[in-house]
């Protein structure tokens, strides 16, 4: 076996190499989005210098597409869906774990089916249902679908967190005569704050990055989300490398920024949810 020092060095070398592989392509795209066209092709691996720096791609993106609208749409859909998933999911998880009644086990099982079975397969019927309700091509339609998509996993995760809350708290509140609804909203709910990070990881990312439902359920430009908007822009301007790289970078940077800021919470959320 290698000497301990050499072994540590080898481990770091492997990890660094993989990180380069993981981050490299992203860096490449972002770097080149700030370069003039000939510099992109001439020296793709070089970072932008004073001579090659150019924002022409970004200008084009802002001019030719409504990227601001797309971004706003994504924000609305994601945040509202997340909030409602948390609210409905917490209430349901609480009811299922606290009030055992006949059929509550069956109900819990019913709700957990959605974890494994992908909701997309029902798109045919979802589309016709939304059309019939006049919710086709609206953000509301998207939100409803995403709530349904996110609930099973959220309920599962929240149930695990609720199981950790000591019984004594609820018993004490009951002895004090606090009504059930207030027990949930004022005693239990605040204690679920750590769960928000975990639920967020499993809910926000799939919604923000989803292409399928915006593609199927929205038709007009004003309801497009950013993922769909970028995808269509890319399809349209595929030969305009500056714009393409700029659009990609604009889609990358917000996510990366949020991720870097919240990475610790996100990752601990993921590991907390997985450690059962």
């Amino acid at each position, binding site marked *: 076996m290698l000497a301990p020092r050499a072994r540590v060095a080898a481990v770091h070398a492997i990890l660094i190499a993989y990180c380069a592989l993981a981050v490299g392509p992203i860096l490449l795209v972002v770097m080149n989005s700030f370069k003039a066209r000939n510099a992109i092709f001439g020296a793709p691996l070089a970072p932008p210098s004073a001579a090659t720096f150019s924002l022409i791609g970004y200008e084009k993106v802002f001019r030719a597409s409504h990227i601001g609208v797309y971004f706003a749409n994504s924000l609305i859909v994601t945040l509202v869906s997340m909030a409602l998933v948390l609210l409905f999911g917490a209430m349901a998880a609480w009811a299922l774990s606290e009030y055992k009644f006949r059929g509550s086990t069956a109900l819990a099982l019913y709700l957990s089916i959605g974890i494994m079975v992908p909701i997309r397969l029902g798109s045919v019927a979802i589309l016709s*249902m939304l059309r019939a309700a006049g919710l086709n091509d609206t953000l509301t339609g998207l939100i409803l679908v995403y709530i349904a998509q996110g609930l099973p996993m959220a309920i599962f995760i929240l149930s695990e967190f609720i199981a950790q809350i000591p019984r004594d708290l609820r018993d004490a509140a009951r002895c004090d005569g606090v009504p059930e609804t207030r027990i949930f909203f004022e005693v239990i709910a605040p204690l679920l704050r750590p769960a928000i990070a975990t639920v967020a990881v499993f809910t926000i990312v799939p919604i923000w990055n989803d292409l399928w439902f915006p593609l199927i359920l929205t038709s007009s430009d004003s309801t497009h989300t950013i993922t769909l908007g970028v995808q269509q822009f890319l399809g349209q301007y595929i030969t305009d490398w500056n714009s393409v790289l700029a659009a990609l970078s604009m889609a990358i940077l917000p996510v990366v920024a949020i991720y870097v800021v919240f990475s610790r919470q996100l990752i601990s959320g993921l590991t907390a949810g997985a450690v059962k």
Partner: protein
Amino acid sequence: MAEPLSQVVASMPRGRFVALMALFLGPAVAVYSLFSIWPLIATMGLATYANDAGGGYRFVGLANFVSLFGDAVWSKPFVNALVNNLIFFCVHMLVQNPIGIALAGLLSLPGLKLKGLYRTLIFLPTMLSVVIVGFSWNLILSPLWGVASGALKAVGLGQWFAPWLGLPSTALVTLALISVWQFVGIPMMLIYAALLNIPDELIDAARVDGLGHLRIFLHIKLPLVLPTIGLVSILTFVGNFNAFDLIYSVKGALAGPNFASDILGTFFYRTFFGNQLQLGNPTMGAAVATVMFFIILAGVCLYLFIVQRRMRRYAF
């Protein structure tokens, strides 16, 4: 789970209890049933219909399925998509999971510095939209830009370069590898969490017993995280057979070149919505979705069966 009703619950008047449950469970169950379960059932129902001459639907029983499996017009692309999906899945199982396990193993070594940084960086691609990933790699691998070919030339493997995304023989595997690149963070994190769960004293005991780090990983750590690897596998299975976004954003609905990258997701999309080559056929699309559902269901049932029988989560 058959606990007796708590005293509080049992002493509540029935009407109030029902109202309470409606408040807590109602919204979740309603939205979920309406937008998740019902559409699935409706789709399966729709699959038993077909377009009739007058533009409406008539009941045809299992005729759509018969066409799907028997009629060459449908069965050829269907089988093509199915086989491709299996290949897609196999690449993930053979590449994504071992890399994820290896990275998790490295990151869980005691006393490793910069752990958090590595974790953050390796997980970064998973946060990105598939559209971004697909397009970025499309550009990088493109012979026009020359980044990939240049990189290979730099290490002396220049002659290995080919426009992999454009060749029917390599397009699917390349796309699968791009997907692996993006999603390896998830098995890595799940297995990493499971490895952390193993008590330090167990590893100490193994060190005292004379095992080196590699042997500890193979004989102690790996067997103890097998349940998590099983979970990762089934999640990969469900995810792969549901996959669509990457292929669509790189190759479009036609999943070229020449349907070489067509998987069940794109096949379903194309069948249902149509494209420049064919009209949309909702009932056939529903049939495809139904078949996909049963394939995924079969996989999940198999997984649950295996988990029930063999794999136990070890309590420490």
